[in-house]
């Protein structure tokens, strides 16, 4: 996947600075400007989540539990209540919140490094318990915050700062397809994988997030949406090429779709 694609250096500021193209800030995001990189997919995913919260009418009973990653920029930026967790630990905090306040609407936001590397057992057990919370995993296949290092979801061939020639199975093992893993667990009511690389995918991802939240509101058990997000900085690709790179590489392995929906079975 590195062939034919220019490696964009990330050790110097971009020649063209970030500029606001259009402001899509939803009501529940206090301050629209963020300090994430141009082309980052995480604000798009966050927008889908907070729009769904607003549309479902649960703003005044929502508690969001945040992991640690670039998206933590949104943990002090929302007009819903937030509990900030440690890296990897959001599902157990969400469990404590939900068990103590069963009427609260509880969701987590974590990245692939947070959820699949640091705290994998947390989400697996939370799903297996059928904990009535929703976990969102923003999967860009790298530790974005540290500058583009390999995670447990990095796909074979993907360049990272600690797999410069691309991830290879012999040295680095295989990526974990988390949504597929969680879909096998009896406690999971809804499991889906979306992406924010195209307008179409943004739209279906918003539907997935809404369906996951609806499953929680119905008391159906654990719900999960993995959202593939662009990280041009961590991928060392041009910002404008990042959506295509996501589609050609990440989404080719972490395949988009609804993997489990008990409400339709």
């Amino acid at each position, binding site marked *: 996947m590195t062939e034919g694609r220019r490696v964009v250096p990330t050790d110097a500021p971009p020649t063209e600075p970030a500029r606001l193209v259009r402001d899509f800030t939803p009501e*529940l995001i*206090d*301050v629209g400007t963020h300090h994430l990189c141009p082309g980052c997919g995480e604000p798009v995913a966050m927008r889908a989540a907070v729009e769904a919260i607003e549309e479902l009418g649960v*703003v*005044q*009973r*929502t*508690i969001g*539990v945040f992991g640690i990653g670039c998206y*933590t920029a949104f*943990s*002090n*930026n*929302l*007009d*819903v*209540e*937030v*509990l*900030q*967790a*440690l890296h990897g*630990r959001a*599902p*157990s*905090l*969400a*469990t*404590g*919140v*939900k*068990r*103590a*306040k069963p*009427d*609260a*609407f509880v969701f987590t936001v974590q990245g692939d490094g947070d959820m699949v590397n640091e705290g994998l*057992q*947390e989400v697996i*057990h939370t799903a297996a318990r059928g904990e009535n919370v929703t976990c969102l995993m923003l999967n860009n296949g790298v530790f974005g915050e540290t500058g583009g290092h390999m995670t447990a979801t990095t796909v074979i061939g993907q360049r990272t700062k600690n797999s410069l020639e691309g991830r290879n199975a012999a040295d680095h093992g295989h990526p974990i397809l988390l949504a597929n893993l969680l879909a096998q667990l009896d406690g999971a009511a809804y499991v889906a994988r979306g992406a924010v690389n195209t307008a179409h995918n943004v739209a279906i991802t918003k539907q997935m997030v809404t369906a996951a939240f609806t499953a929680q509101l119905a008391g159906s058990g654990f719900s999960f949406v993995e959202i593939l997000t662009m990280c041009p900085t961590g991928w060392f690709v041009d910002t404008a090429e990042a959506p295509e790179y996501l589609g050609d590489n990440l989404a080719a392995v972490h395949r988009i779709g609804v993997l489990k929906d008990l409400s339709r079975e």
Partner: protein
Amino acid sequence: MSTRLLEGSEAIAEAMITAGCRFFAGYPMTPFTEVLEHMARRLPQVGGVCMNAESELEAIGMAWGAAATGTPAATGSTGQGLSLMQESLAEITLARVPLVVLNMARAQGDYFQATRGGGHGDYRHIVLAPMDMQEAVELTQLAFHLAAEWRNPVLVFGDYYLAHTMGSVDLRRAEFGPLPPVDWALDGSSGGSGRAKIVSPLGTHKRSDGAGYNLADHYRTCAEATARMAAQVKPLAETGFLEGAEVVAVAFGTPGKYVRAAVRALRDDGLPVGYVRPITLFPFPSAAVAEACAGVKAVAVYENNQGQMIEDVRLAVLGRAPVHFIGGLSLDSSGFGIAPDLDVRVIRQRLERVLDGAKP
């Protein structure tokens, strides 16, 4: 009076429920296991929740989440399990979330872990060390009060003897006065107000304040809160036989009771020995220890470890008397903290040797 014959673990569980604890999470480990068993049985009966967590990492995380909603919450383990929890314990303190943590320790090797903290950063926990079941019932209730008062974790430092000994115990409710309002806790209801609450170890400001996270400011605020807590929480200690004492023995927890008995036996024989037993290990009762040791010829510290609290005793005594270590790690083959040396005759002999050495 509600005196009952109970195992220490059950007495502590009952004391937690009396103190208002409605959420507990834990993972089995000797000698903590029975506390978890009792909480799993009792909490649902009073409308509470007990979680059998998949590890100590999740146990502390679940307790953190519940505590952030203002629900009186606790977790615990032995020192080994608490080692796993340290990262969260450090961050919970920086998030200013009240939590009670039990260490049903194996012997007393966790003194440094308890009083210095095994986690990262600049934080302190209040540490209470009961010597027996009755005191544990009172201090466990005090732990919930102090946690809520200071929005800080409070550790109750017990051991195998405390957890597994049966005895007659009075479970009466202890009153400690009013608490500040729980206006910081999360329930979701402030969403959409423009000032939705946040509970975070990274800070309490939001970007809509014009501030956002500022770790330098937040850590400074936390340090000031810790300093106030350290200065204002009343250090507790028990003293006895200090009049005319030439040697003062210092011990905490279960060994404190054995040391007290040894001192009493020596006094019965006319030997000038007294004792001081720290009950709060943080804040350490330095003034009480210094006063007890004023003018004595020697201080003798008994701990079931290689010598940890002795550092705090030396800081309290400040060189005004020699401080000798008469303890040492004593375990049977199980490693659970059953101590062959925890014997009044053994302690008495060691104190006599210090007395002999203290003679001019």
